[in-house]
């Protein structure tokens, strides 16, 4: 099977969909001639033409608004916001329009828009190239929110998102574009060819939205995470010697409650890990849900390992980023039950 990094896998998903469905268009800032600042749309305009892969003005609100209009007119737009940190000018169009159109028209109108959004830190991106705003979108009724952690899921989830008639916010952890990352910035980078999920089929396949994956079975503690921190949590579990079951959510909305609750009922202990800030972060929803579903099975309080409640700093990145040491400490704490 071909080896792909996450950039190539995402590119392949759009290539497959542009080839299969004439209504698919790719649009955004620098996505066309140049192929995207992360190369995710490289070569697509040459192959499909400038009416299918469209360069756009620097106007996030305009990009999402025109995507909605195109969706209403029968197209299937895959729009890109260059960084998650720059999605806020489009927030009104996402929250007030894209998410609610089907509901407010009782199904008469909808816009099957996918919004691709590079997100997450660990790249010295400072305040406005590192954010993880998934909780803001998880709170909006009517949009699906996904975040892959590897090339195989990235392609399969992106194809599912494009084919989905509901709008999808598709977060791409840019730290994982070129290889998995265990949280140690001092180690040399590892390519995706070293990882089993770097094997990606050339053609069409789907990873279903709304299904979490147990990436490491275990019996002692459940770790619930997504994106870059899946790999950090795996390394932390290994280093801790604790038999942790690690779940990659993949979909934030809809949430796979069954998989996470079944695991926590089995282990009785849970650590939630995300890069985003803690207060009202998605971890709070996870903790509340598990408290409701698994109360009588819990042997210890649910622990959250997250970014601090500060803007994302430049110089103090590795004090801020939830690395292995903090995850190991949390695993030990919940195992001890104190």
């Amino acid at each position, binding site marked *: 099977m071909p080896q792909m990094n996450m950039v190539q896998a995402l590119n392949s998903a759009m290539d497959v969909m542009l080839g299969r469905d004439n209504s698919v*268009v790719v649009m955004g800032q620098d996505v066309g001639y140049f192929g995207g600042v992360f190369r995710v749309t490289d070569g697509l305009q040459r192959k499909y033409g400038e*009416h*299918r892969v469209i360069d*756009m*003005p620097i*106007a996030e*609100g*305009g990009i999402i*608004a*025109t*995507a*909605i*209009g*195109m*969706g*209403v*007119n*029968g*197209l299937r737009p895959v729009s890109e916001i260059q960084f998650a940190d720059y999605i806020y*000018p489009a927030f*009104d*169009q996402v929250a*007030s*329009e894209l998410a*609610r*159109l*089907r*509901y*407010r*028209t*009782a*199904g*008469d*109108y*909808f816009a099957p828009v996918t919004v691709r959004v590079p997100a997450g830190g660990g790249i010295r991106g400072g305040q406005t190239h590192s954010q993880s705003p998934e909780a803001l979108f998880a709170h909006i*009724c*009517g949009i*699906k929110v996904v975040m892959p952690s590897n090339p195989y899921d990235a392609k399969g989830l992106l194809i599912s998102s494009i084919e*989905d*008639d*509901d709008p999808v916010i598709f977060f791409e952890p840019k730290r994982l574009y070129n290889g998995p990352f265990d949280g140690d910035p001092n180690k040399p980078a590892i390519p995706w060819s070293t990882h089993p999920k770097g094997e990606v089929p050339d053609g069409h396949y789907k990873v279903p939205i*709304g299904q979490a994956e147990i990436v490491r079975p275990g019996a002692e503690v459940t770790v619930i995470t997504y994106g870059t921190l899946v790999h950090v949590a795996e390394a932390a579990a290994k280093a801790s010697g604790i038999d942790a079951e690690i779940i990659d959510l993949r979909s934030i909305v*809809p*949430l796979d*409650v069954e998989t996470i609750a079944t695991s926590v009922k089995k282990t009785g202990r849970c650590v939630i890990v995300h890069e985003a800030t803690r207060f009202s972060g998605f971890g709070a929803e996870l903790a509340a849900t598990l408290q409701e579903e698994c109360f009588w099975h819990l042997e210890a309080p649910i622990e959250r390992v997250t970014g601090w409640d500060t803007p994302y700093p430049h110089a103090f990145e590795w004090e801020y980023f939830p690395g292995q040491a903090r995850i190991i400490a949390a695993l030990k704490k919940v195992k001890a039950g104190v």
Partner: protein
Amino acid sequence: MPSASRLHVPHPPARPGEQADFSYLKLAPAGSVARPDTRAPADQVAHLATTLVRVLDENHRAVGPWDPHLEPTELQIGLRHMMTTRALDDRMQKAQRQGKVSFYIRSMGEEAVSVAAAMALRPGDMLFPSYRQQGLHIARGRNVMDLMCQCLSNSKDMCKGRQMPIMYHWGGGNIFSVSGNLTTQVPQAVGWAMAAAIKGEDHIAATWTGEGATAEADFHHAMTFAAVYRAPVIINVVNNQWAISTFQGFAGGEQQTFAARGPGYGIPGVRVDGNDYLAVNAVTQWAAERARTGAGATLIEHVTYRAGPHSTSDDPSRYRPKDEFKSFPLGDPIERLKHHLIALGAWSEEQHRALEQELEALVSEQWKESVSYGTMTEGPSLDPDTLFDDVFKEVPDHLERQREEMRKLRGA
């Protein structure tokens, strides 16, 4: 010379108790403006943004190069649509005062802006209105009962009780959904038009926003995208002088017209007498031909006056002269078309009165039937179970669980 800057805060020309004053409105005589070729680039038609396209003169005759030469029978249809719109508005205003509907917004004085424009477009063209273009629905042949049922949130409500009154949509009639969030529909219309161009179809999009809402960022996005991609779209700014209590100067209308924003983006801006049915129709035809032949977008500023309160929750006597509308120099669109038809010998005061009565009866009859499908307080009503539908295409597990939770609470 003053030695420091001083914040300029715009003031309307008249406040309650003062004499209405429309001297700030730049007018032009009917027939005085040339009609350029529809393929002319924006910089060659810049004058259209600062003058005023008018067809009907003081003697109610159609004059000048913009006369669309419509048949009297078509004008009678347009008049009927405008009068139906007003009759509907009057009936619904009353219904709100009786507590039968929670809220209403009339379009009194602005009927031509929607009806005359809709009559110049094709059924396949997509319309993206704001909340004050109910005339579009009427002109496209919608039964007023459908609009009433939406306002009542009853068992036949197209929105299934999910939207406030007047936030209509019409899938079958190619009229987009009204959102409470101002101006969002304007760049969406541009996107719809871009898609038509991508698909190589000759349908166009038209959208409406008030002059107050042009201050929103979405207006700038719409103009930029429309210009960059030469999208087949007509962007209508309905300058009715008032955004709730805020006069048009606060939206940036003091120094320059709203149409004049078009040329800055490379889009022709046309300022038209919004109460002149023939002028609105003619300018819309011009813009539609531009769009359909690949010459790109047009910005149209309709100079009109919001004759009624902003909504049923508003009392304009607290911020503007009570009788201001009476002094508005462009008059009333229905009266002006009526007199034009009379001048043509194709209408009479008797026919007009008879039509008024006919429409009033029709609207009352439709209201009675609408109420039989339920009101906010009386059945038949919508099934509350449906409030969980259409959030997504298929109802996800967490919403099914919430639906079940609500059913139990209701003892259903």
